[in-house]
């Protein structure tokens, strides 16, 4: 069964460093998302991406964050200068072209980001 994959599974970085989290969405999906979950808290939406542009972003997704689909398979989240409060599990998700009513989003296993 097709699934969303994410690398790395765990990333440790120093405050102020740049990190890139990578995702490979399900191959025939056209909508891509990033969410994060701070330990013990609920999953929060960061950004959605369609047709090579951001379709929506939350207030969390400030200028330190960017997303890119560099090729036909990868979808990346870059944090330019990490802060301690960026420590969280980051989930990538994708959904197909079924439209709004059929917005089943399938999640990857997540990347645990630890900022020291």
């Amino acid at each position, binding site marked *: 069964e097709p699934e969303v994959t994410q690398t790395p599974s765990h990333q440790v970085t120093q405050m102020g460093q740049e990190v890139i989290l990578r995702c490979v969405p399900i191959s025939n999906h056209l*909508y891509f*998302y990033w*969410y994060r979950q701070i330990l013990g*808290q*609920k*999953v*929060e*939406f960061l*950004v*959605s991406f*369609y047709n090579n542009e*951001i*379709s*929506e*972003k*939350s207030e969390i997704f400030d200028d330190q964050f960017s997303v890119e689909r560099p090729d036909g398979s990868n979808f990346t989240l870059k944090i330019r200068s990490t802060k301690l409060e960026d420590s969280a*599990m980051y*989930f990538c*998700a994708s*959904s197909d072209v079924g439209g*709004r*009513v*059929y*917005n*089943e*989003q*399938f*999640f*990857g*296993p*997540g990347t645990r980001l630890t900022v020291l």
Partner: protein
Amino acid sequence: SQQGEEDPQALSIQEGENATMNCSYKTSINNLQWYRQNSGRGLVHLILIRSNEREKHSGRLRVTLDTSKKSSSLLITASRAADTASYFCATDAVRPNSGYALNFGKGTSLLVTP
């Protein structure tokens, strides 16, 4: 505004019993989805129910949706120890210029003991 608030926060049952979790939300939705998360792991999609549906089944799962009360319930029948996990509802709200963001609740932590 917060969407998708589940209750109870924690539920402990024995194998074979049924588990019922509830979710309430505040604004009009296109659909509501339930996810499972095992400790420290990813989110597994369980079921999606559209706003014009009232009930949906998938294996041992039964989901209901009452848009007049803005609430949903997830029933797991004949529970197993492997069902131990956190369960989240997530709503796709009707909004202009929506990028289909899902709003998650805080989840119900289910413990099924043998």
